[in-house]
């Protein structure tokens, strides 16, 4: 159906039944969107990644030198590792925080109105700008922030402490705060699908609350946990604002490097190579999660 391949699709189209043709026509816009705004940019990026810069000019080529540089240069590979670490911590803490909230929403709150209200509370933070929320944590954790004022007034500390801000912990804290709603909704979606009769059956067979949780609820919510984990990991991995605002000198994330490479160093081929590596990592992650989900997911 693409302009590049002419005769063949037209012949196929002619042989289609009217219903099939209608489906093909409906599929065309999303397919075109996918190709123009996803596939083509990836291909362009991939092409760039094989070239190099010479006297501030891009020279096309076919060399893996950029990739070799990324894996052998500590700041680059280290940044990917640190991004992954922060993404992972964000995913873990978000899931731990989100699970009880999702449990309450799915099982404890039975009135529809109360459930809607809780749902609204969970997504309410999204009405505020991401930047504002990141800044808010900066004010909370800063030397003259709310937390320090509190500690000072309680005479827990004599002078403002600075260890609260500009480190990996403050970045993870902020990212967890911002992305937890994604985990809540994803876990809630899988908990909500567990029929009440399963919990009743477990109780009827003699199971107590903890046994019902470990043996029925948790296993059946793994798909939601995985989905929430992937989303929060990806968002934490690629985040730029939180590390820039709250990260310390030792917090070097991949997004920061990208900005520098594109904006300051003007090394587009190297930035493209990093981009391609991230895309490959993302596909690997999705593949592993998909495999894990197929192994544990059951039809309810």
């Amino acid at each position, binding site marked *: 159906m693409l302009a590049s391949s002419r005769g063949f699709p037209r012949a196929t189209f002619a042989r289609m039944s009217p219903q099939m043709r209608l489906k093909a026509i409906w599929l065309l816009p999303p397919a075109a969107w996918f190709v123009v705004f996803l596939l083509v940019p990836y291909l362009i990026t991939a092409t760039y990644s094989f070239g190099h810069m010479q006297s501030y000019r891009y020279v096309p080529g076919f060399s893996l030198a950029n990739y070799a540089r990324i894996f052998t240069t500590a700041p680059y590979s280290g940044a990917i590792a640190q991004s992954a670490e922060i993404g992972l911590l964000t995913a873990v803490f978000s899931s731990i925080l989100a699970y009880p909230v999702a449990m309450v929403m799915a099982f404890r709150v039975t009135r529809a109105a109360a459930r809607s209200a809780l749902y609204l509370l969970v997504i309410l933070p999204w009405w505020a700008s991401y930047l504002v929320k990141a800044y808010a944590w900066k004010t909370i954790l800063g030397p003259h922030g709310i937390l320090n004022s509190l500690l000072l007034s309680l005479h827990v500390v004599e002078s403002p402490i600075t260890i609260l801000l500009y480190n990996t912990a403050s970045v993870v804290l902020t990212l967890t705060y911002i992305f937890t709603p994604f985990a809540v909704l994803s876990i809630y979606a899988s908990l909500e699908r567990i029929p009440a009769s399963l919990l*009743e059956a477990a109780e009827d*067979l003699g199971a107590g609350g903890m046994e019902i949780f470990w043996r029925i609820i948790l296993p059946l919510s793994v798909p939601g946990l995985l989905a929430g984990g992937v989303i929060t990991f990806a968002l934490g991995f690629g985040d730029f604002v939180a590390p820039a605002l709250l990260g310390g000198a030792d917090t070097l994330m991949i997004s920061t490097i990208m900005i520098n490479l594109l904006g300051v160093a003007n090394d587009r081929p190297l930035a493209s190579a990093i981009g391609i590596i991230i895309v490959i990592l993302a596909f690997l992650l999705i593949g592993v999660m998909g495999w894990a989900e197929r192994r544990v997911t*059951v*039809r309810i």
Partner: protein
Amino acid sequence: MPPAIELVGISKDFTGHVRAVDDVSLAIEAGHLVCLLGSSGCGKTTLLRIIAGLESPSSGRIMLEGRDITDLPARERNMRMMFQDYALFPHMSVAENIAFGLTIGPARRRLPKADIQARVERYLDMVQLGPQRDRKPHALSGGQRQRVALARALATEPPVVLFDEPLGSLDAGMRRSMQGELRQIHAELGKTFVFVTHDQEEALSMSDRIGVMSGGRLLQYGSPEDVYKRPESRFVAQFLGRSNFLAATVQTAEPGVARLALLNASCIVAGRADLHPGQRVTVMFRANHAVPAGSAPPGALHVEGLATQRRYFGDYAEHTLRLASGEQVFLQTPPDAAIVDGMLRMAVPAARLNVLVD
């Protein structure tokens, strides 16, 4: 021996709703297979859930083998329930589902591993699911799932097993064979089974006792024959079988014999203490108890009317008759019953007439 289950004045009010269960008292004998029968919304499922402990009664007490269990949570009551949707654990295999009830609670109270294994084997065999032991529920047919649910409920060997419309989602053929199997399992195990069903045929063919429910009340409790032959109320008569009701007046009431006036005739029926002359009563009889007028025994009630509709069922036909009194009755006749000038004449033996005092 105390009754397996005894309910004393059980009521249940749901907030904002009408009374779901209304003052039900009932003693279920150990080893009986009991059906709670009624149409949807009659409170039978709520009553079953109260017995199971999944719902707490607003008032009344529940005894299990003479012990008050009203305040015990479901998991501590020694009974198991088979759920209408089976409620199989989708992430566990058939064997794991059956073993679930045996592998919970503190380890010291559990059976040794080998015994659990043996128990699971036994119940897999009983429901003939040995070859499917490692399958997940979604890979089973409806009938097989139903068997897993049954085996899971039986595996902990509780004295009482509760069934919420256990055969509701099976097709007619499966239903019949499962009814037979359940009866056989019941006979083998000798446990108390309590069923909830809306299917009168199922209730009649399977139970030792039937409890007919309507509007949250238990209208009648007795053996299938009792409930079918001697319904105590119009509702019970109507619910079990195709019934006809005719207005009648008591003419004489002697001990052992009573004479009723109905349909411009009089009829002698078995006397009852609660009948007295001049009293207006209702006479009930079943559509299938009519016989051709020519072969009626003496003393039978002759029913003659305008045949307004005929439905053919193969072995018999069912006619709707409009009587001279304006009343309407349904009669089953041989398929070739003669209709002369639009009129059909049948008779109901006096022994088939039931007097209801409303």
